[in-house]
């Protein structure tokens, strides 16, 4: 169900933010200002223009709330009526500023290199120029009058806006998807409209709103100085100018237009704040229904671990909208055991691993019958950092680019193990040595970017080894590495295991990698574990048709290039669409009626082997794996 994925969309978040006190205030203020701007001149226009020579320079009274001016006109009415002009000029200036800023900001990314550099340099110089001076300079050029002032204030906003947009655009323009669009021959204009603008919209809008407050103040300033709006027109700045010399006689008359400027400026600020909250995903989360909690009866089996280091029963990970990514799996990992977790993309491998480390990302919820680690309940007592180490595919995601590697490692020991700084540093160097990083003392003082990809992955493993991990969870640790480095990292994991006696949960889509390092393999499919088998059984001994097909699909150095690779027809189920029967049934050529009606449970099959299948392949009747998947019906046809 696609629309559920838009749960975190901007519109949704905006809606949520608008319901907070600050959102309500901003919305009310906006409405009020707009209403005044629209209806003020209609209702009070006459009163504001009526000259009354009998009531010149009066103070505040019942008839004239804020008194009257030199010509006996009602000041309160004039303040209200001035709203429209002030707002209109402010917005006009903002449009010029934002438009110019966007133009100059985006241009360097799409024009030629030399022109781009020139624009960037020019904007750089203009930004460095003091803002107020620039504004007055422009105002002098354009001369007095509202048009001139609008241009002056608007253009003064261009350099900072352009600088911001340039920075934002530069990062987007360097991304692979913009590169892809370029290769596809997408024209400059479409490139900007489709790819650049939507991706810089949030911060730009935010900046523009907040800058609008500044524009209002600047514009009123110009009018106050007599450089802006000229009589007989008037805006708040002009009114302030007219009344200021009488501030000791009739203070409210001078203060009212000033207050209008300040309050409206605040309103722009508030709107910006609301947008920032919605855009920056800082939106306060509406509480969702609490998940069905752990079934308590399972808690009464304290000695149920049976020698296993990790034991999970009925582990589930769900996302809003009924997306069940992990659908109730049970697994155990023995002390010091190396277990591989394989399966197709989206089968829930990573989420299973993240659930063990209590790291499932936000809208996801974890429930489990049992989730125990080394005799402790993992949910009550997360073990990440001390006894549980995580290694991810991208080592830079785990390393802070700004900190020295040694310091980052040492911090783990300081935070989790309460080591002193000296002890921690010594241990960091020692651990870097343990993962075969040459010259660990020197390397510890370097930052991550000075490491190669393989070395960074080693450093992350070393970080996991700062404590005394009993389990290392590695999610595709070598996928980003080349074969030679992959081999080194795999060897390293094997050594680390031999030295420390830690268990290993290795997630990979590469069966060969798993076969090389692990003793036992768990095969996941559609959020379920469908087979659990010793690694020796992988070739030839797999009982689940899916495992068989998976093995047959791997090209090896002996695969005949003349034949098509075996593939599995169809595609894996989406987390939302779990039916009643075996999840593999639509793609399984052994499927019969029973498979479509009932889901098979994971049940013992041979020694050390469990399989969830009604009609498992047994060794004698086994068809060759290459035949297990029909070539004719492959997914590509």
């Amino acid at each position: 169900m696609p629309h559920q994925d838009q749960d975190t969309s901007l519109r949704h978040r905006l809606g949520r933010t608008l319901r907070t006190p600050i959102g309500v205030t901003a919305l009310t203020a906006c409405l009020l200002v707009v209403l005044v701007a629209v209806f003020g001149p209609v209702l009070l226009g006459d009163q504001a223009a009526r000259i009354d020579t009998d009531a010149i320079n009066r103070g505040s009274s019942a008839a004239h709330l804020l008194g009257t001016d030199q010509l006996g006109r009602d000041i309160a009415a004039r303040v209200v009526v001035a709203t429209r002009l002030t707002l209109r000029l402010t917005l006009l200036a903002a449009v010029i500023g934002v438009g110019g800023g966007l133009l100059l900001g985006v241009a360097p990314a799409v024009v030629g290199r030399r022109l781009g550099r020139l624009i960037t340099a020019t904007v750089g110089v203009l930004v460095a120029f003091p803002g107020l001076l620039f504004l007055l300079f422009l105002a002098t050029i354009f001369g007095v009058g509202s048009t001139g002032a609008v241009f002056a204030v608007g253009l003064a906003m261009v350099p900072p806006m352009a600088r911001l947009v340039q920075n934002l655009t530069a990062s987007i323009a360097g991304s692979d998807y913009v590169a892809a669009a370029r290769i596809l021959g997408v024209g400059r204009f479409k490139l900007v409209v489709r790819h650049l603008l939507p991706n810089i919209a949030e911060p730009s809008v935010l900046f523009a709103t907040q800058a609008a407050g500044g524009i209002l103040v600047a514009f009123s300033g110009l009018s106050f100085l007599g450089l802006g709006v000229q009589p007989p027109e008037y805006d708040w700045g002009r009114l302030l100018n007219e009344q200021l010399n009488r501030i000791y006689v009739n203070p409210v008359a001078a203060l009212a237009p000033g207050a209008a400027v300040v309050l409206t400026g605040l309103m722009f600020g508030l709107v910006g704040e609301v947008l920032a909250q919605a855009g920056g995903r800082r939106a306060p989360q509406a509480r969702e229904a609490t998940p069905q909690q752990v079934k308590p009866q399972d808690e009464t089996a304290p000695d149920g671990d049976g020698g296993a280091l990790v034991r999970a029963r009925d582990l589930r990970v769900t996302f809003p909208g009924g997306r069940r990514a992990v659908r109730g799996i049970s697994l155990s990992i023995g002390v010091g055991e190396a277990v591989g977790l394989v399966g197709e993309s989206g089968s829930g491998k990573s989420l299973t691993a993240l659930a063990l480390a209590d790291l499932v990302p936000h809208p996801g919820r974890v429930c489990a019958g049992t989730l125990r680690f080394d005799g402790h309940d993992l949910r009550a007592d997360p073990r990440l950092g001390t006894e549980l180490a995580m290694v991810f595919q991208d080592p830079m995601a785990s390393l802070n680019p700004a900190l020295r590697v040694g310091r980052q490692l040492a911090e783990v020991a300081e935070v989790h193990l309460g080591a002193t700084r000296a002890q921690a540093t010594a241990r960091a160097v020692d651990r870097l040595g343990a993962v075969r990083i040459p010259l660990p003392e020197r390397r510890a003082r370097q930052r991550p970017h000075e490491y190669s990809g393989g070395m960074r992955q080693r450093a992350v493993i070393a970080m996991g080894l700062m404590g005394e991990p009993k389990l290392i969870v590695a999610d595709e640790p070598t996928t980003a590495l080349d074969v030679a480095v992959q081999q080194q990292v795999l060897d390293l994991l094997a050594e680390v295991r031999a030295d420390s006696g830690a268990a290993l949960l290795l997630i990979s889509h590469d069966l060969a990698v798993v076969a090389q390092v692990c003793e036992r393999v768990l095969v996941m499919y559609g959020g379920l574990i469908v087979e659990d088998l010793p690694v020796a059984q992988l070739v030839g001994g797999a009982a689940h048709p899916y495992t068989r097909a998976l093995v047959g699909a791997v090209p090896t150095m002996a695969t005949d290039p003349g034949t098509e690779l075996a593939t599995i027809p169809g595609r894996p189920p989406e987390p939302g669409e779990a039916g009643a029967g075996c999840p593999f049934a639509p793609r399984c050529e052994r499927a019969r009626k029973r498979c479509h009606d009932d889901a098979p449970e994971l049940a013992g099959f041979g020694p050390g082997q469990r399989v969830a299948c009604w009609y498992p392949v047994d060794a004698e009747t086994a068809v060759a794996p290459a035949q297990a998947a029909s070539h004719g019906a492959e997914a590509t046809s």
Partner: protein
Amino acid sequence: MSSLELRGITVRYGRFTAVDNVDLLVPEGTVTGLVGGSGSGKSTLGKAVVGLAPMQSGRVLVAGSDAGRRRGRSPVQLVFQNPYASLDPRMTIGASVAEALPREAASCETPARKAPARERRSACDAEVARYLELVGIDPARAVLAPDALSGGQRQRVALARALAARPAVLIADEITSALDVSVQGAVLNLLRRLQRELGFAMLFISHNLAVVRYLSDQVAVMDDGHLVECGPTERVLERPEHPTTRNLISCVPTLALAEEAS
């Protein structure tokens, strides 16, 4: 009619030479596998061909003519390595694929005469659906943004986009490293079939030697920016001449280990 010829390609980033004077011919209708350690310059070479890396010197010839300064849709398409960065997060995956469709085929963009908008839209949707199905993505997911997909699923969308552009030469940069074996098989079969049908030349960059071996007619090996070995697949993998090649071959993990253990 679409060979890819690289002559003396050199790419420098500042003082660092990423690719040093590489000559390579991918004959028309064949696949050349490009292997090498990380940082050896494989990806940079691929990027230089499509004009995404600053080429210091050298020429790129597609079907014998200079492809260097051509405007518009490049005859060479590249599928990127990192599926998390290669799709616009603000665009639905369907729109990303639609962007690649050639205008004349399913004119999603320029109004084809007399075709009503609705018809054009649905023809376009059908093409998008076809390419998504081709790479094993449920076409119903075309309306999703990329962040609702897992890494492997995104890579398949990126592949669908490149194929939708009907390239003359395809550069595939580690495209299977993020794919599942089952999908990898389907994608490799698909790539091979389309490559044979349409006859485009392909530069297949990968660190998976088994995959390269399966797909390629010719293998080129890079080390430290240089092309150190190039020859017919069988010869290079069976009788490697350069130490780099030998080292790469010895590091390939195999399922056979599991076999031996049993």
